[in-house]
Each structure stands twice: as structure tokens, then as C-alpha cells.
């Protein structure tokens, strides 16, 4: 992985690792609860780098304010354009002339006053998990169908590959749209839709590899030695066909993340309150003119993730695809 002559691979591996870490560690990295609704009246649509004082009342409510000042036994809260005064006795976190807690919106806040940075981090968990699981599903289906077609040959091959052609010709997005609209409200359904529309090219790839490998001497030798066909497939054909499949998979996951984002943007993917990058952009669409940050940052996150996986895939291909390696010299 840390090949000096392959900066693509290094950059891609580094970015993917960072993204994976950010997604896994979201609960520790995120400054706030992504679904927390704290005083939306004062905290909605705050621009990036906003810092608000957080006043905790004795009955446990949080009030957010731009500024807090103390005059006698009253606490004066400046909330946007209005000022509210509160008896100091009703505040639980008094400290000097103000309060001891603050809320910081590094990437701004959305229409409900939720922290965009925290939601981008948590949204990354959802988007990456859905993309990865859909990819695993596509790989499982694709490898099974492709290996069966390639190894069995004859009419099995013919039937399976015609089915693959048929699936490839389906208007994927429309189909995914219909399925998502009709069977909505579940991450599992979303993963099945994404994986179910992405396995066909894996199957083609695996079939091609298996067909080529079948004629190689070590496979012929195994067959001549009387090794059973299933064992040949499992021990000789599949392990050798795996490299191109892995390279292809690392390029494909970016597409899956993009389709998931599009479906979620259209309101048919991940459902609220679960944050996902696509649905966050949809939230930001309504306030594009006044609160650009709500839509901008999740889009940057999507682009970053897709770039990262593609760099990794390109790097892997440069390194493991012998055809390109010779073309390079």
C-alpha cells in the first residue's frame, strides 16, 4: 500500500482511512448530537464559526444566546434581534458575569439549529455503511452469477448472461426510484436496491476472468489430476480472479455513494431523522440563498469520499493490472 512510486494509491488509501476513521469515531469527534434540537428559535441557520452562549435553566432547558450579560439579579440574553431577561436564580450554569457553557457551530447550523459538522460526520457513517453493504451485496451476487456462468459454460452461461444483459438494460435510476418510493423507510431496502442494480458488471467481469483462467495450465493440470470441478472453482479459479474484482469494486463504491446520495436527495433514500449527505443537501436546498453552508458542506463530503475511493481504485489498478503496467513502461 505504501508504494513510493504510486502516489495515487497512497493518497487514496490515506483518504479512505481518514474517512473510515471519521465515520467510525463520529460519536467522539462530533461536537454535538446530530439530532439534538436545542432552542431552534435562537440557533437555526447560524453561519459557520458561530459561537453561542448556552444557558441552562434550573428546570433543565437550554437557551442559546449571542451574548449574555448580568445586571443585578437579572441575566440579559441577546437572541438575534431581541433581548430576554431571566432571573439569575433560575439559571443553573452561572459563571462570573455570564454562563459556563457555549455552543460552537464550526460549519454552521441548519433550519432546526442542528450542528452541520456533527451531521456531516454522522451522515458519513450512514452513506459509507450503505455504500459498503450495497457493494458487498453486489459482489456476492456478481461473483456467484459470474463464476457459475464462466465455470459451467453451455446453456447455463447463455441463460445467466442474457439475464445480466436484461438487467443492464433496465433504466436503473427509474427502477430504483420506483422501488424506493414504494418500499420506503428502511435502510435494508435501500441497500438491496443499490446492490441489486449494481451486480451485473461484476458478474461480467468475473465470468471473463474465469473463462480465461479455465484454459491456463495449472487449471488443466488440476483437472487432469481428477480434482472435482467445484474444488477447482473454489481453490484455483476464484482466488485468481479476485484481484481485478477488488480493483473494480474500489472504483464502483463511489458510484454507489453517488446513487445513494441522489436517492436521499430526492427524499427516497435514507429517511429523517437519520442524517445522510443527500438528505442534508435537500434540507439546504430550501435556504440556498440565505444559508449556503447547509447544502455546501455535505456535497463537499460526498465529492471527497468519491474522489478518495476512486484514487484508491486507480492506484490499485495501476499496481495490479498487468496490462496497464506494461503499457506504462
Amino acid at each position: 500500500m505504501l508504494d513510493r512510486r504510486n502516489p495515487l494509491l497512497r493518497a487514496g488509501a490515506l483518504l479512505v482511512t481518514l474517512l473510515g476513521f471519521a465515520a467510525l469515531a463520529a460519536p467522539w469527534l462530533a461536537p454535538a448530537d446530530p439530532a439534538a434540537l436545542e432552542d431552534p428559535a435562537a440557533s437555526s441557520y447560524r453561519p459557520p464559526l458561530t459561537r453561542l452562549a448556552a444557558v441552562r435553566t434550573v428546570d433543565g432547558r437550554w437557551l442559546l444566546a449571542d451574548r449574555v450579560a448580568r445586571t443585578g439579579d437579572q441575566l440579559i440574553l441577546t437572541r438575534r434581534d431581541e433581548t430576554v431577561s431571566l432571573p439569575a436564580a433560575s439559571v443553573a450554569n452561572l459563571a462570573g458575569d455570564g454562563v459556563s457553557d457555549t455552543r460552537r457551530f464550526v460549519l454552521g447550523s441548519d433550519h432546526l439549529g442542528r450542528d452541520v459538522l456533527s451531521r456531516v460526520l454522522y451522515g458519513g457513517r450512514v452513506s459509507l455503511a450503505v455504500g459498503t453493504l450495497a457493494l458487498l451485496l453486489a459482489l456476492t451476487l456478481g461473483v456467484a452469477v459470474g463464476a457459475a456462468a464462466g465455470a459451467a459454460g453451455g446453456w447455463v452461461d447463455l441463460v445467466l448472461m442474457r439475464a445480466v444483459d436484461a438487467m443492464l438494460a433496465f433504466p436503473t435510476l427509474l427502477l430504483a426510484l420506483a422501488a424506493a418510493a414504494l418500499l420506503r423507510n428502511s435502510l435494508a431496502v435501500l441497500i438491496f436496491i443499490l446492490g441489486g442494480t449494481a451486480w451485473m458488471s461484476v458478474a461480467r467481469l468475473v465470468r471473463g476472468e474465469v473463462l480465461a483462467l479455465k484454459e491456463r495450465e495449472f487449471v488443466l493440470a488440476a483437472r487432469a489430476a481428477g480434482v472435482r470441478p467445484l474444488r477447482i472453482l473454489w481453490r484455483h479459479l476464484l482466488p485468481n480472479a479476485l484481484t481485478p474484482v477488488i480493483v473494480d469494486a474500489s472504483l464502483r463504491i463511489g458510484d454507489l455513494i453517488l446513487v445513494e446520495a441522489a436517492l436521499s436527495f430526492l427524499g427516497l433514500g435514507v429517511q429523517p431523522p437519520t442524517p445522510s449527505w443527500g438528505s442534508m443537501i435537500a434540507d439546504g436546498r430550501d435556504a440556498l440563498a440565505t444559508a449556503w453552508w447547509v447544502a455546501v458542506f455535505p456535497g463537499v463530503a460526498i465529492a471527497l469520499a468519491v474522489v478518495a475511493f476512486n484514487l484508491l481504485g486507480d492506484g490499485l489498478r495501476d499496481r495490479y493490472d498487468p496490462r496497464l503496467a506494461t503499457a506504462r513502461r
Partner: protein
Amino acid sequence: MASLSRFVVRRAAAAFVLLLLVLTATFFLLHLAPGDPTQLLDNPRIPPAQRAHLREIYGLDRPLAVQYLSWLRAAARGDWGDSWVHHRPAARVLAEAFPATALLAAAALPLEAALGLALGVAAARRRGAWGDHVLRTVSLVIYALPTFWLGLMAILAFSVRWPIFPASHLRSVGAGELGPLAAALDVARHLALPALVLAVTNAGGLARFVRNSLLDTFSQDYIRTARAAGISERRVVWVHALRNTLPPLVQVLGLQLPLLLSGSLVIEVVFSWPGVGRLAYDAVLTRDYPLVLAATALAGVLVVLGTLLADLVLAAVDPRVRHA
């Protein structure tokens, strides 16, 4: 040419079977999913009896197999049924939306091809050098940008901050009063952002494809021979090498044709473009079964036509394909 026409007939027959499969799958997906269109009328002021009556009118109370057969029989006659939302023939509703989508695609495809080719060829010619890395990164980044997000950013930049272009729809209010030239200009201004966004995001993938297949070609002997013969590098790239990357490119662009139409769905939603994509999206949300099925048929026909067109060009260019 006899072999070519046989090729077309064979492909058309396969395409027909395929289309039938797609439509059948969509039909059952729609009807087997929980709920039906009358649930949109799910409000206490509409008595259940009336809902039942509506289901009867739509024919939803009949056995599924009967519904399927009667729909199929009508569709075979070219009758796609009335849209339940628009209360007009679904085929006509689609036909009215089609020009807007076709216009968007017609504007975006040449832009995409030009941009993708330019980026891909430029990167391939500088293989391994600085310029290659920069151009590859540019292609990768524009490929990675979600289309709908880039659309929103374009609106933010060019409709909100610097209001140069309108953010939505195909015409201005009152465009009917304009003369023909002013009206065309008005449409062009509305077309600019969606077409550009669509072209740019698609060009990223195309550029990557062009670069990689050109590099494959560069390693072949005949290119070395051409270079050795003293043919100018420009000619080697644009004439000798590019011609051999043309067949796969034609196939990719052929597959892009339906993608531009169904794939512009998200862009149509973002820019409130009155095309087929947005219509299909609304139809799915309102469960307008006849319209969804008609739109799926249209998308399927376009996929089939796109591949067929690409195959035909390919067969005309490459005799091996014809005789396969």
C-alpha cells in the same frame, strides 16, 4: 449488407423481449407494493365507499393477472391508459414533456463529448507528467461531484449571488408575448445552467475513459510505427490513435443517450425543468401507475435505441461485430 439487416432484426427482436420483461417487472413492482393510489385520498371526509368506487373505476379491484393482461392488451394497441393525476392519456402527457428533455440532452451531449474528449486526450498526451496529474485530478473531481449538488451550487452562484441566469423552468413568465428571436434567447438562458451542469458532471467520467483507452492504444505497434515514420504527434493522436478508441467511445456515448434522458431526472428536479424525468418522479410519488409504466417504457425504448444505435455504428465501422 444482408448481414447488417439480419443483425438489426436479431437485435430488435431481443430488444422487444427485453422491453416486455422490464415493463412486466415494473407492473408487478407497482401493484405488489403495499398501498395504492387511492391512499392519497386518505382523508376522513372521503367515505370508504367512495374509495372503493375509485378502486373500481381504476380497475384496482380486479385480480392482478386480469389487470396485467388487460393493461398489456391495451398497451399493445398503443393505448397506455389515462394518467390518474393529469386525467389525460399518459402517452400524450409524456409526449408533451419529451421536447424539454430532448432539448436538454441535445444541448448537453455535444458539450459533454467536447469537454470529455479534450480533457482525456490532453491528459493522455502528457502521460505521467505534471499536466496529466492535474488533468486527471480535474476529471476525477468533476466526476465525483454529485450532479444535483453542482446544480444547486450553480444556482447559488449564477442565479443568487450574480443573477446572470434564471434558476428554474424553461421559459420566463410572459414569454408568450416575445418575438421568435427573443423567445429563443429566453429558452437558451434557461437552458444554460442545467445543460452545463449535466455536461460537466458527465464529462468527468468520459475524460477518464478516453484517457485510459488512448493509453491502451498508444502501447500498440502500429502507433510506434506511425511515430517512427515521422508522422506528426498531433496526427498520430487525433487520427491514428483516436480512431481506434472510437468504437468503445461510441458505445459509451450510446449508453449515455438514455442516461442523459433518465439520468437528467435529478437535474430536472433541481431546476424545475418541465421534462420527462421530473414527470416520472412526480408520477412515482403520486403512484400514477399508467404514467409510471409509460415513462418506464419510454426509458426502456431509449436504452434499447441507444445501444442499438451504438451497435449499428459499431457494425458499420467494425466488420468483426457484424459477423459475430
